[in-house]
């Protein structure tokens, strides 16, 4: 799997990029590719998402220059911003197994954060990666032309107060955490990026 580091990319722009990778992957012009990047502050609401899970008025976000985007992925509301590593695996699924794909992303992230001293796990029925009872990574996958897009967001040094303004993924009483929060020390984004790229390379093979 190829990995591309894109730096900070606005949400909509990143979506266009994903779709252009997706189109080329669908006709097999490129191999499976993992796009790694960060987003400026943005709240995104999945197709089934309920705006009521945003706990502050839209206008107050607008006043701070933060966007609320409704997007064509599964899942409810989440937050992206600086200090959070976002990964969009563009993977061709010849014989789709969407649950195995989601479980594989979880496994890759569990591996990746362990290298930084964080023990994490899955919780049955709650997609994502959890350190104890707190969510360290969110996952939401879309499929078009049998190619995956959207993906995961791993909190490295994310400002966690941003999550307190939403019912995370539509779940009341669920909190977010980050590698920095769990370990008390902030790892370099480049180091996390490398670890995540390596783990995804191991776990996201064999879907084509």
């Amino acid at each position, binding site marked *: 799997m190829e990995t591309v580091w894109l730096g900070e990319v606005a949400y909509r722009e990143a979506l266009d990029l994903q779709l252009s990778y997706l189109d080329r992957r669908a006709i097999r012009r490129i191999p499976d590719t993992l796009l790694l990047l960060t987003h400026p502050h943005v709240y995104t609401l*999945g*197709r*089934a998402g*309920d*705006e*009521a899970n945003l*706990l*502050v*008025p839209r*206008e*107050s976000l607008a*006043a701070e220059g933060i966007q609320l985007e409704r997007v*064509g*992925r*599964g*899942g409810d509301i989440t937050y992206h911003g600086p200090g959070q590593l976002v990964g969009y695996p563009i993977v061709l699924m010849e014989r*789709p*197994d*969407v*649950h*195995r*794909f*989601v479980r594989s992303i979880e496994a890759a992230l569990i591996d990746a954060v362990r290298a930084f001293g964080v023990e994490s796990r899955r919780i049955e029925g709650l*997609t994502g990666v959890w350190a104890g009872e707190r969510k360290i990574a969110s*996952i*939401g*996958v*879309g*499929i*078009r*032309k*049998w190619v995956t897009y959207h993906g995961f967001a791993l909190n490295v040094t994310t400002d966690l107060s941003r999550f*307190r*303004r939403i019912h995370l993924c539509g779940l009341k009483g669920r909190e977010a955490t980050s590698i920095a929060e769990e370990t008390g020390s902030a790892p370099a984004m480049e180091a996390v990026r490398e670890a995540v790229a390596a783990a995804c390379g191991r776990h996201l093979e064999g879907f084509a």
Partner: protein
Amino acid sequence: MLIDVVMPQLGESVVEGVVVKWLVEVGELIAKDHPLLEISTDKVDAEIPSPSAGRVAQILVKPGETVPILAVLAKIETDPAASRPEPEEAPKWDEETEGFPGHMARKTGPPIPAPPRVEPSAPPPPPPPTTGRIRITPVVARMAAEHGLDLSRIPGTGIDGRVTRRDVEEYLASGASAKEAGSPAVPPSAPIAVSPRARKVPAPPLAEGDQVVPWTPIRKKIAEHVVRSKHTSPHVHIFAEVDMHRVAAVRAKEKKEGVNLTYLPFVIHAAAKALREIPIMNATVSGESTVLKKDIHIGVAVDTEKGLLVPVLRHADRMSLKEISAAMDDFGAQAKSGKISPDDLSGGTFSITNPGIKGNLFGTPIINQPQVGILRLGQIVKRPVVIDVDGEDSIVIRPVMYLGCAYDHRVIDGVAGNGFLYRVREILEAGIFS
């Protein structure tokens, strides 16, 4: 040739998916791999591409429906020579019934004048199970079996009165099924619809100049909440006439010292004290249990530009009058600037509503679920009242308030409910707030 588009197997452990939306219409010409519809499973949304080029002949599943794998979702006519169904004949989405007219009743699609053809190898969908003469989908059949429901008792809102998945969900949510299972001797009564939308009532005709205002998310939330509350809790409403002259005296005294207090903090203070003494009023309902809450967190309804908000005063019983007043002022300012934090809006154990300066005599408030009680302030009006002065009946002028209270009779009986309101009144009339 007419070929089936079936719900694909999206993975070993995936047995069903929800149709999110259709991306094509009946009659549309499409290329192979053209996206037909979006399916949602767990946290993955997938667009399903067309297995073949052709014309969309039939769409068989409506958005929101859960379908098992291999169920037929649509039919594609691959023969360009086959006549195109006339637009009038094409099933149209019916907003009223939220369905395609007659699509479950019709065995074949729009008439296609072509010689008999061999159906492709995809397995046909299982015939819809029936209960008596009621046609239902496999999902509804499964739900009915799981919950042991008699579908003939569920009012169907689908085509031809068909019972839809939503009908079953609402029926289950209404609790009517518990009655059905628990006491079969009870004669069937019409289950109560809990949807805030009166779906069975036809929309009144619009006259010129009428304005249609779709509900905002907050409006929907309030609508859903109040309907659910009225349906869940048998509200008992009681009223007390409270002589507020001692409260008025305390207010006047504070005002001289430069502190402006409204009547609301006094009522909050008195309620907190009474809640401490009568714990059943400071409770929430969880399933078939009552949770007596240790802490007293009073939600106070505030009308803001964004709509009705209920900020919560945490540990209201530990706050002084001035602290309560200051906290209410803060909430007011935060609500106005839209900066009220989510933590401030959750976790209440009891509520108070105050119509404010444009209030009225009394009202019957709706309980804020899952709480079990709520107080409502009436207007404070000077009235002649009869009091005892040195053993003589005398008429004096007093500021009087009718204080309304609703309690949930599932949990609270008259003794506790009346006792609570009596105690609040006693504290207010005694005028001691420390």
